[in-house]
């Protein structure tokens, strides 16, 4: 019996002003994968994530846990998503605890999403019918990202790395089966990056959470991902990371493509 894929993307195209930002791509993600998506700036990684989350109109077909259309909408709230940057008022009167607890809002559609995931043949051990505020869950999520000591700190007072970990805790608190991280360590110092990657490794291996993660950092991808997708509008590789890193032609192609994009960005 084949296990339902967490994500199926088929012939996906997203256009901005008739120019493709994502050009006819297809790939799938299996449960337990830690898929690293690499590509230069402007390669369409964020656009791809926004399309998966239903924030961006597209042509093609996307299935989450085998579902599409209206059932798809019930599942999206169960995905943990950490965008590249979350903008908020610097003086926003919310503590780390307040922000993480925002991940726990109960809604009928979320309950429906939980039922839908339980019906598909993915292995999800959470048996609750509704997702409600639960102090233990928040504490556990803060523990996973190593921020228990900062739970009462106002978010405006945190560093970039701490803030990213808060948003991961917010995404984790609802026990997602899928976590999407958009360049999570951009503008984070090296020490925080290492902590952050260890958190990713833990939640992928111990909590069996599927992760899709975009990055420019080939070293990190080679250490922490098990599969790689390489894209620049189109996907030109998708498969096991060992295959990608052992293929010198592919690596050369990626490096050249990144350099070209880097030069292009500097020229403009």
């Amino acid at each position, binding site marked *: 019996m084949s296990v339902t894929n967490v994500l199926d993307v088929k012939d996906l195209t997203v256009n901005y002003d008739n120019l493709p930002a994502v050009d006819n791509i297809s790939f799938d993600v299996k449960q337990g994968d830690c898929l690293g998506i690499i590509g230069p700036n402007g390669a369409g990684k964020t656009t791809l994530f926004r399309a998966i*989350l239903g*924030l961006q109109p597209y042509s093609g077909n996307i299935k989450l846990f085998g579902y599409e259309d209206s059932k798809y909408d*019930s599942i*999206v*709230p169960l*995905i943990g*998503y950490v*965008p590249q940057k*979350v*903008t*908020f*008022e610097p*003086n*926003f*009167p*919310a*503590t780390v*605890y*307040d*922000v993480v*607890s*925002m*991940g726990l*809002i109960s*809604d009928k*559609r*979320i309950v429906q*999403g939980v039922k839908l995931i339980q019906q598909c043949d993915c292995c999800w051990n959470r048996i609750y019918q509704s997702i409600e*505020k639960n102090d233990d869950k928040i504490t556990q999520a803060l523990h996973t990202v190593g921020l228990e000591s900062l739970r*009462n700190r*106002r978010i405006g*007072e945190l560093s970039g790395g701490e803030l990213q970990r808060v948003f991961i805790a917010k995404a984790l608190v609802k026990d997602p089966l899928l976590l999407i991280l958009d360049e999570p360590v951009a503008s984070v110092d090296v020490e925080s990056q290492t902590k952050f990657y260890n958190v990713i490794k833990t939640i992928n291996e111990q909590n069996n959470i599927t992760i899709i993660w975009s990055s420019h950092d080939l070293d990190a991808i080679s250490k922490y991902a098990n599969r790689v997708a390489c894209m620049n509008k189109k996907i030109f590789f998708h498969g096991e990371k060992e295959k990608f890193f052992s293929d010198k032609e592919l690596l050369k192609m990626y490096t050249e493509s990144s350099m070209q994009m880097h030069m292009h960005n500097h020229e403009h």
Partner: protein
Amino acid sequence: MILEALSYGFMQKALIAGIAVGLICSFMGTFLVLRRYSLFGDGIAHVAFGGISVGLFLGVFPLWTAFIVSIFGGLGLQKLRQSTKISGDSAVAVVLVSGLAVGVILVSSSGGFSVDLFSFLFGSILLISQEDTIMILALSAGIIATLTILQKQFLHLTFNEEQAKLAGMRTTLLNYAFVVLASITVVTSMRLVGILLISALIVIPNITAMQFGKGFKKTVFISMSISVISVVSGILVSYFLNVAPSGTIVVIAVGILIGTLLLKSTGLLGKIDIKNPSKLTHNS
């Protein structure tokens, strides 16, 4: 002297209604200020002026027409922001002047400014009837109950609308519920400080509370406390000095804001323990 003032029925009603209004303005104001809707109160109050003029013109109870017109004004404002690229402050300006213009036309055609209209413009908390007090209390209880029930959703929506949408919230519906609630808050509060000063009660206690650098619940609590202190002391001071209560309330609120900013600049504010305000702590 204070006991003597409190023995008067009109003072009791003013204080009870004033405290209720102080609480709803500061609670609603927390979300309005954070969503950069600070002048929403001003905009809706001016629309309410148009609504009051309609009531006076038609000879019906002006507060009801003010409620209806303001709710539609609030919904129109939200629609204007969502379906056009007009920014929030410009949309408020459009709605504000539209309400005012309609009001001016109707007032001029019904024989000019009356005492009734002045009481709405500048507030008339000392003149409110028992029925008005009951209505303000009932509406305030409804607003506080709704805000308490929806506070998680409104907080998430205020923090980041896209994240709220991804969390499965019906953001469009919540946005409309938000402006309707804010419109009712503004019209309910008009009797206290009047159309021209309503924004002060929504904005100032919240800006002051945010200087304390606390989390959401504590900030709402501090804001409500500042608001109630301003209203109660404003009504009492205005009684003893025989000046307008609306202006006095706002001047006191501004005074508390200035005092807080001065404390903050000296570094003392960060050391005040909210659970035990008389104690200075050495929190980092």
